[in-house]
């Protein structure tokens, strides 16, 4: 009896002693205390040290662009850190070129705030806000794309964005993820309606956020979004406009077309939309309506997997085929491409061959 008692006591005390050591180490070694982040030489933020800069700034309502949710894969979160960043980490080196390293550009999701920092970010990032919203409508647009319409409940004035920009959609922890995650989704709706945003979300096999949206998100749920982000929006010029989109890449183009309709822009505008089968086409009614209502607008869908039974009379093949077919060499054009990265790259290549300068080609890759 006595042995058992001594045994238990000894084991318990050794474990307790070790736990105490870890706790003390946590309190003294891993506790970085409060750190100051001086932003653009004017805003002084006090944050708890030890966390990635991206999330420390987020806790102070400064939202750095990020599409991957801080996993270190999208490279959108680059900021200039003048002081306090420490050496460049192995997780950053693949994404930073020599000039960027010389300029103290770093990935804010990888750099932890361990010392006081001085950073520089573009002024317009101060305008990015966090919004609470309610899912007003969900609809199955195609077998793989879901449309969700969010009504912004606070701040009440809603979101001011440029058509083409994206928001971060945050979803709670669930079966696929122990942490709350966010990803980038482009706004498909009309920018004039500041209290609603519509997103089109493609189901990605085992993808965290897209699976949540497809399988768990219901009408009436509350979700948080942040934005607006991104530089994919219409540029002022006299050139004709060509939109090229596949899959959910149509979303930002829809928003831009609302703008073209609303502002009565007369530039000759063409949309190439590509997918596989007739059931992959969506927003058709609106696009066909715009063919009549927008003065100079043409919509050309193309399907790469249409077969006899589909009785499809439209274009067949990929969007790159459409460029070859419909765009003469050296046409003065502004091109906006949006969708999966391989499609964007192959279109950009064909356009280069066609003599369209890279400075007139704008794109968003949905990575």
């Amino acid at each position: 009896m006595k042995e058992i008692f001594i045994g238990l006591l000894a084991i318990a005390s050794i474990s307790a002693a070790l736990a105490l050591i870890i706790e003390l180490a946590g309190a003294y070694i891993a506790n970085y205390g409060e750190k100051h982040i001086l932003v653009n030489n004017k805003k002084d933020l006090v944050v708890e040290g030890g966390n990635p800069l991206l999330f420390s700034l987020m806790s102070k309502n400064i939202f750095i662009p990020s599409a991957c949710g801080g996993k270190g894969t999208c490279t959108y979160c680059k900021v200039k850190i003048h002081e306090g960043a420490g050496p460049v980490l192995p997780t950053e080196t693949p994404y930073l070129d020599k000039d960027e390293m010389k300029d103290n550009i770093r990935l804010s999701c990888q750099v932890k705030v361990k010392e006081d920092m001085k950073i520089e970010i573009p002024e317009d990032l101060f305008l990015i806000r966090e919004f609470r919203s309610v899912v007003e409508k969900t609809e199955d647009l195609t077998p793989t794309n879901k449309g969700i319409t969010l009504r912004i409940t606070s701040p009440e004035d809603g979101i001011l964005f440029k058509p083409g920009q994206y928001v971060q959609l945050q979803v709670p922890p669930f079966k696929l993820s122990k942490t709350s995650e966010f990803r980038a989704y482009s706004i498909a709706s009309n920018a004039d309606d500041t209290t609603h945003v519509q997103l089109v979300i493609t189901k990605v096999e085992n993808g965290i956020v897209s699976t949540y949206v497809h399988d768990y998100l219901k009408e009436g749920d509350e979700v948080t979004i942040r934005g607006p982000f991104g530089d994919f929006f219409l540029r002022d010029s006299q050139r004709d406009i060509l939109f090229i989109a596949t899959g959910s890449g149509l979303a930002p183009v829809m928003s831009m077309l609302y703008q073209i309709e609303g502002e009565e822009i007369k530039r000759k505008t063409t949309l190439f939309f590509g997918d596989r089968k007739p059931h992959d086409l969506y927003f058709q009614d609106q696009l066909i309506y715009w063919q009549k209502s927008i003065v100079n607008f043409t919509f050309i869908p193309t399907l790469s997997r249409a077969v006899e039974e589909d009785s499809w009379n439209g274009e067949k093949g990929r969007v790159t085929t459409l460029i070859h077919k419909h765009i003469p060499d050296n046409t003065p054009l502004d091109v906006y491409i949006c969708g999966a990265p391989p499609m964007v790259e192959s279109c950009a290549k064909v356009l280069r061959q066609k003599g369209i300068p890279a400075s007139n080609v704008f794109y968003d890759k949905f990575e």
Partner: protein
Amino acid sequence: MTQIDMPTLFFAAIFTNNILLTNFLGLCPYIAISKNINSAAGLGVAVIFVMTCTAALNHLIYYQVLVPLHLEHFQFIIFIVVIAAFVQVVEMTIDRYFPALYQVLGIFLPLITVNCAILGASLFMIIRDYTLLQSMGYGAGSGTGWLLAITLVGAIREKIQKTGKLPKGLEGPGITLIITGLLSLAFTAFSGLIKIQ
């Protein structure tokens, strides 16, 4: 107590009694992390450090605390918690004070907590009645042996990836186990040279 001096024990633990290639301990991280030689070496260095220190710590705790209280049978559980706690504290310290080192070792440290070679080294030193000094030599040697084994196999795997074509079923763990078997044959050839217990 064995009459073998510390330097001999150190070399014996590397070559004649390699903990990985003759005792087959620490195989999981060895198979998982040996895809490329740099991470293999990083993990190996971390193992040397942790093995040496935990052998010493466990030696002290075993002979100063467990033996006087007649609690030797608790060695397993105690060694495991000591290793886990040690690794945690070391990780925090390195993260804070040696950022450059943390870049090399940091991501590997948590992996080591569950590396059975570490526990193995501590248990062997008890079974074989090593002194504190011998234990440290043995720990450092075993760690170095482990590093040697994982970098060898890492280099071979890198080479295979660059030059050879493997049947689908042999890729990854399959071929690694076969290479390990061959390496192990080579190492067991040394095994009669020095008796370490």
